[in-house]
Structure formats: structure tokens, C-alpha cells
């Protein structure tokens, strides 16, 4: 096939591949996940019914689900050929290392500071002076 002038030559005709119904379905999925996240967050705020760590796990899983639907449907990656999917997906796996390494580093830093930095340790035990948020003249910084 001669592809002397760029663009659509050598590409399949995509005219019939567009599916409005699938887009709306994705929209509803995203909306419902967001609302569920919100309801969980508010219920937790009101009642503290559940350990926050587990909820955070739930939030992260839901976020990844939303990311999957946006990438696969809205960005159409789920309908591209496998080679292309892989060149995008495989580098993204670096994030797994990235996350584990830096979370680990952060919590190790926290532990070291609590052990050796007495200021940090005291701060963790001292309640702050309550600040009236809407009172004039108590705003930090300028003005």
C-alpha cells in the first residue's frame, strides 16, 4: 500500500465503530462509582463506622476502576490493537514500584523522626490551640 501522503491511508475505516450506547453506559458507571465513594466518605465522617485503612483500600480500588473505564472507553484504548495497548500499559507498571518504594520511604522517615526527633514527638502529643476560623484578625499571613 502506498502511504506517500500521511494520515488515514493504511488505517481501517472506523466509521461504524462508534457506539453511543457504550459511552453512556460508561458515563453511568463512572457516576455511580463517584456517588458511592461520596456516600461512603460522608457516612464515615458522620459515624466512623469502619476502620479508615480498609475504606482507603476501597477508595483506591474504585479509583482504579474509574481510571480503567475512562482509558478503555472514553480514550478508546480498549478497542485498539494489542501492540498499542501494551506500549501504553507496560510502562504504567512502573507505578507499582514507584508507589511501594515511596510510601515505604515516607513511613520509614516518620518512624525515624518519631524516634530521634524530640520536637516531632512532642508535636504529635500536643493539641493545637483552637482557632476560630471566621473570626477577623486571626487569619495567618498578610492583610
Amino acid at each position: 500500500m502506498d502511504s506517500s501522503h500521511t494520515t488515514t491511508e493504511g488505517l481501517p475505516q472506523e466509521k461504524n465503530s462508534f457506539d453511543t450506547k457504550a459511552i453512556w453506559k460508561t458515563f453511568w458507571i463512572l457516576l455511580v462509582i463517584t456517588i458511592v465513594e461520596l456516600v461512603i466518605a460522608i457516612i464515615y465522617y458522620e459515624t466512623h463506622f469502619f476502620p479508615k485503612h480498609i475504606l482507603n483500600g476501597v477508595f483506591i480500588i474504585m479509583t482504579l476502576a474509574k481510571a480503567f473505564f475512562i482509558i478503555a472507553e472514553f480514550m478508546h484504548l480498549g478497542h485498539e490493537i494489542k501492540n498499542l495497548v501494551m506500549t501504553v500499559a507496560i510502562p504504567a507498571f512502573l507505578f507499582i514500584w514507584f508507589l511501594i518504594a515511596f510510601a515505604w520511604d515516607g513511613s520509614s522517615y516518620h518512624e525515624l523522626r518519631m524516634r530521634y526527633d524530640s520536637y516531632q514527638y512532642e508535636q504529635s502529643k500536643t493539641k493545637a490551640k483552637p482557632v476560630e476560623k471566621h473570626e477577623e484578625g486571626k487569619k495567618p499571613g498578610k492583610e
Partner: protein
Amino acid sequence: MAHSVPVGQKWWSGGRSPFNVEYGKLMMWYFLMSDAFTFGAFLISYGSIRFSSNSWPNPNEVFKSFPFIGEMTIPLAFVSLMTFILIMSSVTMVMAVGAGQAHDRKAVMKWMFLTILGGLAFLGCQAWEWTHLYHEGAWWGRNPFMNIDLTQSSTNFTNYFFTITGFHGFHVFSGVIINIIMLIKTWRGDFERKGHYLMIEKAGLYWHFVDLVWVFVFTCFYLL
């Protein structure tokens, strides 16, 4: 899910695109990859600092205001509205892409216009939120909020919040500019003359990426 490809098709022997997409679109994907790592670095740095801190402010306490309802507070309602606006504008963007594939110039213009409106609405919401927080005393370098365990909070919270939502807001802003340019080009009939609307698809990829990043920013700052 992948495209059905005839068995034994030789993608790499020349004459066709081995990834079955146009060059510019492939490069847009790679640009978005690099941008994803930029945002990833920001968010992971935020996470790392948060892990190293004793405690952290409660987002439900910080982000509970809503315009025009006065002192009444609903935790997280306003950011949910922002999330809804952005998801909605993503949908209108896909519709524009679909209309472009059908070579329907009028429909492309309509959907692009709605997408731009959505982007502007999101930016307006963010401007309100920033202004509101600023008047509560929050800005880079100052943090009026207490930690959730009532200990003194550091400015890390506000620094990261304004930097990352600001960087994302700047992406939304440039996305809106790109979409406006696309709308003008559609209106002038540039894509009609070219014979395809692939530029709309590339702008669309960028716009969805902005939505995608917001999903993560939303989780990291408002839910966790």
C-alpha cells in the same frame, strides 16, 4: 477487546501503521504517558510526605463549603459537583469524536461547544474553591486547618493541595484553549477539507486525560 486482526497479518513489513493508528495519535498517547508520570511524581511525593507526617487535616472538615448556601455545610458536595462537570464534559467530547467520525460538522461544533462550556464551568468552580480557601487563610506557606487528631498541622497540606490542583487546573485551562482552537478549525471547515477529523480525536485524548487525572486528584485529596 482488541481489534480483530486477520491471522498472520504482518504488521511490521511496511505499508501500514503497525499500531493501526495515525502517527499523531500515537505520539499523543506517548505524550500523555509522560504527563501521567509527571502527575504521578507529584501525587506520590504528596503521599510520601503524608506517610511521614504524624497526622493530616480531615478533608471532610476542610472542603465542606458550597457557594450561595451560606453557613450551611455539606462535606465534599462541591468537589462532587466539579467531578460531575468534568465527567460530563468528557462524555460530550466523546460525542464530538463520534460526530467527527461520521463527518457531521454541525454536530462536532455542537459537542465541542458543550465540552468547552464544561471546561469553563470546572475552572469557575475551582476559582471559587481557591478563593474561598484563600479567605479562610489557606495559601502556599500558610495553613489554618488543624490535623484530624487536633495537633498542629504543617503547611505541607496546603502547599501540595494548591500545587497539584493548580497544575491540574492549568491542564484544564490549556485543554479548553485547545478545544476552542479545534472548534474554530471545525467552523472554518479545515477538517472537512482535510477529509478527516483526527485532530478532534487527539484533542479528545488530551481532554480525557485531564478527566483521568482529576479522578486521582479527587481520591488523593478529598477521600483518603
